[in-house]
């Protein structure tokens, strides 16, 4: 059964790497474990696409087309990130920023983190979902503070406290859910199984579910980074090591949003109103607008792209909030595109900052002279994330905006303004980084840019051509989300 492999490999990897320490080839082993995970995930995806949804282990694990594609995506990005982190971390060590002990911590908790996210994605039990989300948080807290600089400690602390509190609220929501469920399903394990709940969602007590959803939304929403719960996100992204920033904004946010969606489906079923949808649209729109205006004032490149993650998460939340086949489809598509593109950008940014020795954008200039491939990688990645065709981010934005214009015209002025401001801010800052003259010397070593262009290539392809099975997959998922 692939599912056990998928969960087992990373956890085993975590333990193994913790024991193995840094006695040579740890990065390679890390990459190997991720590769194994990726293969298992691919196998699982193939099976799901062939055979449809799947309940495993007395219904403790439930894999439908919605989460299996997130599983595949997670495994893929995890693998490429591992590839990227191999040279990156080596150089960090050469720069004396990291010790062997910390690298050991990094590698093992990286695997654990991936494992936790996969668990969160595949579990069928809302309780376990909560547990694994908390686990993922804990695994990354120490990664954020890996450099032990005051700034990184502060970021990690805020990350821990804010997300911890958020998660706690989510737990309360889960309890309320269970409280409502056990009256229908009776006490015991089954009452938290999502499939069971989904079966009886019409009978669940609306008032309780309302409260539950509020707690779940605020709880998991904190991890999604919805304004005004987002405050931890820019700090954590800017201060942690770049590979961590990549997986945080590329994967963790998706997983959290996936949790929100799971509960939304239940609440919609129970209430029969679109209260949940409206709430999500409100949060999404707020996030998009606020993030766009905050991007404008950034000087630190990683911080800027962290805010852009908030913006895109807001856009996705907005899309899911709108509901309907097209919007949900667009939301899923945007999730994928954002993960791929944003992680690619962080890879490129990582090398750029490493070379310049700073994250201040004013000190990074003329990458195209010092290393053309890196420069073009960053430029194309930025253009992609800004939603310029033919890159796939545009495909989803196209669907989202047109649907919004048709279904909720009132929201479009905000979207128009926010997208415009975000475009002006990000592009106006990235352009001089890539183009123009520079004082920096050429890059001494060859950066690992294969992941960057792999991701961008995928994004480009998906912008022009979405393979039918992938489309079918998206469509099923969109249908599951109440399309």
């Amino acid at each position: 059964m692939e599912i056990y492999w998928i969960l087992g490999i990373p956890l085993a990897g975590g333990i193994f790497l913790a024991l193995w320490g840094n006695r040579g080839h740890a990065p390679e082993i890390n990459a190997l474990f991720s590769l194994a995970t990726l293969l298992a995930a691919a196998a699982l995806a193939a099976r799901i696409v062939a055979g449809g949804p799947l309940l495993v282990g007395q219904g403790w694990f439930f894999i439908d087309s919605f989460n299996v594609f997130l599983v595949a995506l997670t495994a893929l990005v995890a693998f490429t990130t591992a590839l990227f982190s191999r040279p990156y971390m080596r150089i960090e060590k050469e720069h004396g920023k990291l010790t062997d002990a910390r690298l050991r911590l990094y590698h093992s908790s990286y695997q654990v983190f991936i494992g936790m996210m996969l668990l969160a994605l595949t579990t069928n039990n809302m309780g376990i979902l909560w547990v694994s989300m908390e686990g993922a948080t804990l695994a990354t807290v120490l990664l954020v503070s890996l450099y032990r600089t005051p700034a990184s400690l502060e970021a990690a602390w805020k990350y821990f406290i804010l997300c911890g509190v958020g998660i706690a609220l989510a737990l309360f929501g889960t309890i309320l859910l269970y409280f409502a469920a056990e009256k229908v399903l009776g006490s015991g394990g089954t009452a938290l199984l999502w499939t069971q709940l989904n079966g009886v969602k019409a009978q669940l007590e609306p008032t309780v579910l309302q409260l539950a959803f509020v707690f779940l939304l605020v709880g998991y929403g904190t991890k999604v980074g919805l304004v005004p719960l987002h405050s931890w996100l820019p700090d954590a992204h800017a201060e942690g090591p770049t590979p961590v920033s990549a997986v945080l904004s590329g994967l963790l946010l998706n997983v959290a949003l996936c949790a929100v969606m799971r509960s939304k489906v239940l609440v919609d079923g129970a209430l029969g109103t679109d209260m949940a949808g409206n709430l999500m649209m409100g949060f999404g729109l707020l996030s998009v607008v606020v993030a766009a205006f905050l991007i404008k004032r950034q000087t630190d490149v990683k911080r800027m792209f962290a805010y852009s993650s908030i913006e895109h998460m807001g856009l996705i939340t907005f899309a899911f909030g709108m509901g309907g086949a097209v919007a949900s489809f667009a939301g899923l598509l945007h999730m994928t595109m954002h993960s791929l593109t944003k992680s690619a950008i962080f890879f490129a940014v990582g090398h750029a900052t490493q070379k310049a020795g700073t994250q201040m954008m004013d000190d990074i200039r003329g990458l195209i002279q010092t290393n053309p491939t890196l420069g073009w990688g960053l430029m194309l990645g930025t253009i992609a994330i800004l939603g310029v065709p033919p890159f796939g981010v545009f495909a989803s934005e196209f669907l989202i905006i047109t649907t919004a214009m048709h279904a909720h015209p009132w929201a479009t002025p905000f979207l128009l303004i926010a997208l415009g401001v975000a475009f002006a801010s990000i592009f106006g800052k990235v352009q001089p980084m890539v183009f123009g003259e520079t004082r920096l010397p050429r890059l001494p070593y060859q950066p690992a840019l294969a992941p960057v262009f792999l991701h961008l290539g995928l994004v480009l392809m998906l912008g022009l051509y979405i393979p039918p099975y992938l489309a079918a997959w998206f469509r099923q998922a969109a249908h599951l989300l109440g399309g």
Partner: protein
Amino acid sequence: MSLSYPLQFVNLLAALLLLISFAMLSQRRVVGLITLFAWQGAALAASTAIIAWSTGQHHLYYSAALTLILKVIAMPWFFYRIVRQLDVNREVESMLNIPTTMLIGIVLVIFSFNLALPISQMAGTVMRSTLGIAMACVLLAFLMMITRRKAITQVIGFLAMENGLFFAATSATYGMPLVVELGVALDVLVGVFVLGIFFFQIRESFESLDLKHMEKLREK
């Protein structure tokens, strides 16, 4: 309606929990805070055990034991050690002065009771009103986290919040499925462990656990 004595006793414990929450809200000294936290844990463990006994939900015994070990013995001891090592006993005055905090706390209690009322009406379990109390505990702990200025007090607030959640779980729903309980417990344990590491790191780079040193990351 009349409740059986054990359950009345649980109600009493519930009231006690709420009381302790208020006490924590007003407590200035860190050590006192830890003590109160331990008591809260004890009350929680007791109520869990009683519910387990009176309703025959055997898995609740496990969680009662867990609570006892973790929240009454392990963590307080751990915190005492930290406080002694880092001597951060004296808490500087909180952001809001105590009376105001109390007033807000009362408002919160009323709010959460109102919120819980319709739900308790339909509660299948014998324990009705406890949900409101649990929610009140959660919100009070939240308030405490907001008002306090030391890292360690924030953590204690965080754990008090978990206590509230735990109480909600046990009293309102006779506890979550065992796996979940174990998972939650594990998470809490790891969390506290991580926190411990943190305290020392923070300590060695800021020479104190005061949060005012950690306001560097901001929008200029």
